[in-house]
């Protein structure tokens, strides 16, 4: 069993204010935005006054404490030995999303497929676990990710991270159902998804049901025809919902005005 270490130190615990070189790396990524240009710095503890003027700093003369022992030998500025542990197959905690860690923790995560797959090599059969995880926040954001690892828990972890990375926004009608009936074919899976009135519930394949729960679609009727392989049903649903045509776009294309009578009279608000 491979032991893995957490490489990323948590934010702020080892940050010292003495020198800028000793700041810990952040677990969350702060993205460059147009609003927070001057306000936020990547390293915690850096303030506008603290920022070193790099063009005015000299690498030898200004770092006097590092060149104290002026011997003829080379000063040992770097550790002489290589790090003893070489960690293989690390599962990193850092996920590349604009979602904060709080939002990531609050996401609905559901493992829909977990199966044992085998890779035949010259060395023999190499089994591993494959996981497909669907994440969503119940308000339109959702995504799916696949992960493979020797251990199921780590495969699920990898899949969850990839799912969070692949999150995208899905348009819903009235925040509860799809806008039009969809017919979609993905490989051997044919999907029929129908929009339904409020209070209907999600009556479709159990995988589609879970995906709708993650997205936040409450009323749907659907049928999977052809192959019902879970992996393909999930991928088909995501593809079908991504390739939806919104009535607003149709109206724009045809030069017509769109008036939503149903939401005015019967919509759930």
């Amino acid at each position, binding site marked *: 069993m491979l032991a893995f270490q957490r490489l990323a130190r948590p934010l702020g615990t080892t940050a010292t204010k003495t020198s800028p070189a000793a700041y810990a790396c952040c677990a969350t990524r702060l993205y460059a935005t147009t609003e927070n240009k001057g306000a936020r710095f990547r390293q915690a503890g850096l303030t506008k006054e603290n920022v070193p003027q790099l063009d005015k700093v000299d690498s030898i003369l200004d770092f006097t404490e590092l060149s104290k022992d002026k011997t003829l030998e080379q000063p040992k500025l770097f550790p002489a030995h290589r790090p003893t542990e070489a960690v293989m197959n690390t599962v990193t905690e850092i996920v590349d999303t604009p979602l904060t860690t709080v939002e990531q923790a609050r996401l609905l995560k559901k493992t829909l497929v977990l199966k044992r797959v085998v890779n035949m090599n010259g060395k023999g059969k190499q089994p591993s676990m494959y996981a497909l995880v669907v994440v969503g926040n119940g308000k339109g954001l959702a995504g799916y990710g696949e992960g493979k690892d020797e251990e199921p828990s780590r495969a699920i972890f990898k899949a969850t991270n990839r799912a969070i990375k692949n999150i995208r926004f899905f348009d819903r009608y009235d925040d509860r159902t799809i806008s*039009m009936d969809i017919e979609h074919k993905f490989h051997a899976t044919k999907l029929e998804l129908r929009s339904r009135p409020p209070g209907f519930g999600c009556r479709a394949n159990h995988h589609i049901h879970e995906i709708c729960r993650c997205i936040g679609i409450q009323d749907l009727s659907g049928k999977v025809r052809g192959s019902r392989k879970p992996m393909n049903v999930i991928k088909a649903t995501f593809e079908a919902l991504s390739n939806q045509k919104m009535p607003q776009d149709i109206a724009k*294309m*045809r030069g017509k005005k769109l008036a939503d009578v149903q939401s005015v009279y019967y919509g759930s608000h």
Partner: protein
Amino acid sequence: MVFFHRSDKAGKQILYFFVFSFAIYNFTPLINTITMPRVYDLCARIQNGFRSRLQTIAIPETKMNLAICNVLYREGFLSSVTRGNHVGPDVEYTPTTNENVATRRLWLSLKYKDNMPTLNKLSVVSKPSKKVTFSVNEMKSVASGRRAKFIKPLQPGEIAVMNTNRGVLELQEAIKKNVGGEVLCRAS
């Protein structure tokens, strides 16, 4: 000519003459030359034109074709509908005479937005083998999302072209005028 005689139970002899029509071999399948083209011809041409991302297509000029294209134009699927030659649309008005009737075409300019065609599917509903006629109530149910007579309900953005006593109309227009008729095709 083949002579056929068949003896009845009463012993009468009835002569049947069968005249076989000679097969006409068409080497130019561009235009249906024998009879006026049916609705499926128009549907296929327009769909193929959109799939090939053509700018304009030429279809045979008939009253039915013109009427359906007018409906599609009013609904915003086509940019323009013009009469023309087999070469191109008319620059100036040319009357249809007996001499030029064979070359007369209808030129439709197709509409695209954001690299997507406005019309994805134009499918026939009423076929010669199975005609579909709707009453006003059935039309209203189809328009409101319930099926009628094995015809799936209209989705948002879908239209149905109908042939009524008051002309070729879109389904919603026919409901307004309170006329039923034959459902020719549906476009989405």
